[in-house]
């Protein structure tokens, strides 16, 4: 008597294949560092972003030791640091620098105080070995 087949009963693809096209990334290497705006208050932050995008956090170089209480600020989302230099249209998923970046006039109309600082993140901290060697095995 024959046993069950050892092969897949069907092999269909939803992403790969010529008919559907390959995966096209919106952006390729090289990419850029990121940053986020720091605000003195939630009200100032929501002038630039939505409530959902504003979160409390402490400055990376803030004092959190020696019994000194950490001072919390409100932070907007991370966005690409090269937003001013980009010639192509922005990634729609990137939140950008916030409404206050449009200048003093926009800031006055919005009623907010704008960011009190900017903190930097980074990209490219993985991948250096991959530029020179095979990865798979």
């Amino acid at each position, binding site marked *: 008597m024959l*046993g069950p*087949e*050892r*092969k*897949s009963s069907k*092999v*269909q*693809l*939803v*992403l*790969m*294949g*010529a*008919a559907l096209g*390959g*995966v096209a*990334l*919106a*952006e*390729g*290497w*090289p*990419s850029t*560092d*990121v940053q*986020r705006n720091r605000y003195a208050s939630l009200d100032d932050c929501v002038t630039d972003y939505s409530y959902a995008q504003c979160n*409390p*956090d*402490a*400055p*990376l170089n*803030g004092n*959190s030791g020696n019994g000194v209480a*950490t001072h*919390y600020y409100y932070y907007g*989302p*991370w*966005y*690409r640091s090269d937003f001013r230099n980009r010639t192509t249209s922005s*990634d729609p*998923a*990137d*939140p950008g620098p916030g409404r206050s970046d449009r200048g003093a006039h926009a800031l006055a109309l919005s009623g907010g105080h704008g960011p009190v600082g900017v*903190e930097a*993140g*980074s*990209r*490219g*901290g*993985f*991948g*250096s*070995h*991959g*530029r020179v*060697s*095979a*990865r*798979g*095995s």
Partner: protein
Amino acid sequence: MRRLALEPRRDWHRRVEELGFDFHTIDGEPYWREDACYHFDSAEIDVLDDATAELHALCLEAVDRIVRVGRYAELGLDDYAAGLVERSWRACAPTLYGRMDLRYDGEGPPKLLEYNADTPTALFEAAVVQWHWLEDVFPGTDQFNSIHEKLIDAWAAMPHSGKIHFAACRSQAEDRATCDYLRDTAMQAGIDTVALDIEEIGWAPSAATAGAFIDLADTPIHSLFKLYPWEWLLDEEYAPHIAKLPDMRWIEPPWKMLLSNKSILPLLWEFFPDHPNLLPASHRRGELAGMMRSPGVGIVRKPRHGREGEGIVVLGSGIDEPPADAPAVYQEFRQLPHFGDRYALIGSWIIGDKPAGIGLREDADRITRNTSCFVPHYFD
């Protein structure tokens, strides 16, 4: 186990390219070959299936023993890597896949040559391309290949929160295809996915939280499939951030570092001496000579982290051993079965915790490399 000469499908280029297989020819040389195939009988397939399951069980037992007594130094792992291994092992972080390279000629037990447990490739051609070849060429026969179904099942069973990110060196065709294929199967399991290059991963620091790895849309990455070796991740700028995120899921998990490392071969032989699916192995050549059961056979030296045959040296008698530029292990050399002028290696896939199928690569040289050809198989 036989190698059969075949007439390739007249439109095979088009057929495989329709599947998204765009690296069937590499640097003008064929990588996918269907002017031949390998034929097995069902008893031989049972042997391969059983040996793969057995070896997987041995590997899991070996990981547990290593973690319990902390034998990380023998694998070249420092305290930081060991911490990641222990945390992921104790959390039962699930594995998705791995490929064991086996020496098998249809007679005698399959022997484990190495375990590509972290970043195995040759997956898409094994799971998809050879399956479609079978449907076209030998439609009434079977193939040891349920990789595709088992991948979808494994993704469906894998715990994750929200989307899974898929990172690879996307400028490399084979890596991109492997990553995209796995992403395809994850999507078929109902998972929301995002693809990015490994270099596009960002780090968003935070003083109040642990920080987060982020994607190009600045979204935190909670679950990451990475086609990028652990030993490289741990040697790069972002390595110190990894331990800050104990809840982040890595696929493959850090404990796979123990198995993708060829220093596991001497440990397996120590834990399970004379096991029929293992070959004697040691970190010391002189010690290995005393372990070998077959007088007169050679010794092969393998670098701890070599890939695609890189750095492998067969040491014959009377030949001075060339200096090694990296830590290496010594293993009893068993020549691959050869059919005409072709040496054949079996890559046996584990998906989740189950044997799932095989892919064969062959070469005119006795060492299988990234230039070796993939040849399909069937059995009846």
